[in-house]
């Protein structure tokens, strides 16, 4: 069974009543969604003036992310394609207004009225052609075009996505750029398979200081007891043109370390000023397996 829900069924069918109940009753999922929403709000970089804004929650589902928006004091409008998920949101009596709609058909909002948009784990659904008339490119175009139009000048959209592969991420990004957005991808914990999260941070309007994309979170400053982290965690910001996918774990391959490598390393150490034994015919000689 595929672990990607997008490959099983279109979202309005996948998120039926039982899935919706599962999704919202899982405390682990709720916790993850809350964290993702907090991070997305952080990346929205709304002015810190205490004035509540009007935000858009794209793919709001059962309102988990919307609740985070409310907790941060803002008003929001949520859009989702699954009636089951929206029903759960109603039961949870979320503060935001809910719309039953398909983001791939265009958002249907007036120009310049939204102060910011977030989306948690939703936009990658656009890339699947579920119905014969659903050409993903047209849907991406309609989505990003309408999103760009409805955002106010200087507003941002932060879309947390799970692209299936590099090609899909590039596809999503390219349609965002075509719609007029500037911005890039912020990757948190790029080296950790479990914790790795990608956020498309898109800005409207002319580039300025406010459109500088922040760096992603690494493992800096955290305790080293986490077994998942490899030795050299770093903050990583992936720009749009970067085609190299961050490698997951640096596997140390013994086969690559022949005599040549050893001699080079010894020379390096000598240059540093370390005490290094001299090179002889025994250097890097293959030892017995038991050694």
């Amino acid at each position, binding site marked *: 069974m595929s672990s990607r829900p997008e490959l099983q069924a279109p979202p309005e069918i996948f998120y039926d009543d039982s899935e919706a109940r599962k999704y919202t009753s899982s405390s682990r999922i709720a916790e993850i969604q809350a964290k993702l929403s907090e991070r997305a709000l952080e990346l929205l970089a709304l002015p810190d003036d205490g004035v509540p804004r009007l935000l858009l929650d794209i793919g709001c589902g059962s309102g988990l992310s919307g609740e985070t928006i409310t907790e941060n004091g803002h*008003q929001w409008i949520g859009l989702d394609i699954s009636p089951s998920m929206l029903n759960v949101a109603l039961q949870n009596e979320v503060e935001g*207004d809910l719309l039953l709609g398909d983001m791939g058909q265009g958002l249907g909002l007036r120009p310049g009225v939204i102060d910011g948009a977030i989306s948690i784990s939703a936009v990658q659904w656009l890339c699947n052609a579920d119905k014969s008339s659903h050409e993903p490119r047209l849907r991406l175009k309609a989505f990003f075009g309408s999103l760009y139009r409805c955002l106010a000048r200087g507003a941002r959209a932060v879309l947390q996505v799970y692209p299936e592969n590099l090609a899909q991420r590039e596809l999503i990004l390219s349609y965002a750029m075509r719609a007029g957005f500037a911005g890039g991808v912020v990757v948190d914990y790029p080296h950790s398979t479990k914790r790795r999260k990608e956020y498309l941070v898109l800005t409207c309007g002319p580039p300025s200081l406010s459109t500088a994309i922040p760096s992603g979170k690494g493992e800096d400053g955290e305790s080293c007891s986490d077994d998942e982290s490899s030795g050299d965690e770093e903050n990583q910001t992936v720009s749009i043109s970067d085609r190299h996918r961050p490698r997951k774990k640096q596997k140390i391959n013994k086969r690559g370390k022949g005599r040549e490598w050893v001699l080079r390393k010894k020379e390096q150490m000598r240059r540093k000023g370390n005490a290094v034994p001299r090179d002889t015919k025994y250097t890097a000689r293959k030892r017995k397996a038991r050694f």
Partner: protein
Amino acid sequence: MRLLTHNMLSSNIKGVANGFPLRIEVEKVVEKEVEINHDFLRNIFPKIDWKALSDASRIMGYHELPEEPPEPSVLEADIEFLRKFHHALLELHLEEGALLCPESGRKFPVNKGIPNMLLLEDEV
């Protein structure tokens, strides 16, 4: 659905030039009290289409809003006006009814406060 959202929604149907504002057909209106925030009201005011809000609030049964948009200075000084603005914008909910595209007349049903904005294949 509150009038704040109604004021932002437009009909997205293919071929429709101006899908705003959507006409409201009321079946059930619910009033829910919400804490007032003057900063939010002052911040959102420039984005509001006043005529659409004023007309919509009348259809929902609230007649306190003036038809003409107020001067921005009114927002600063007149607390009573802010309260009326707040009530119309955030406390009136369309629970059951429909939204109609002003050009094509197409109905978007509203159930349990959620408008169904899904377009058919040939409307996209």
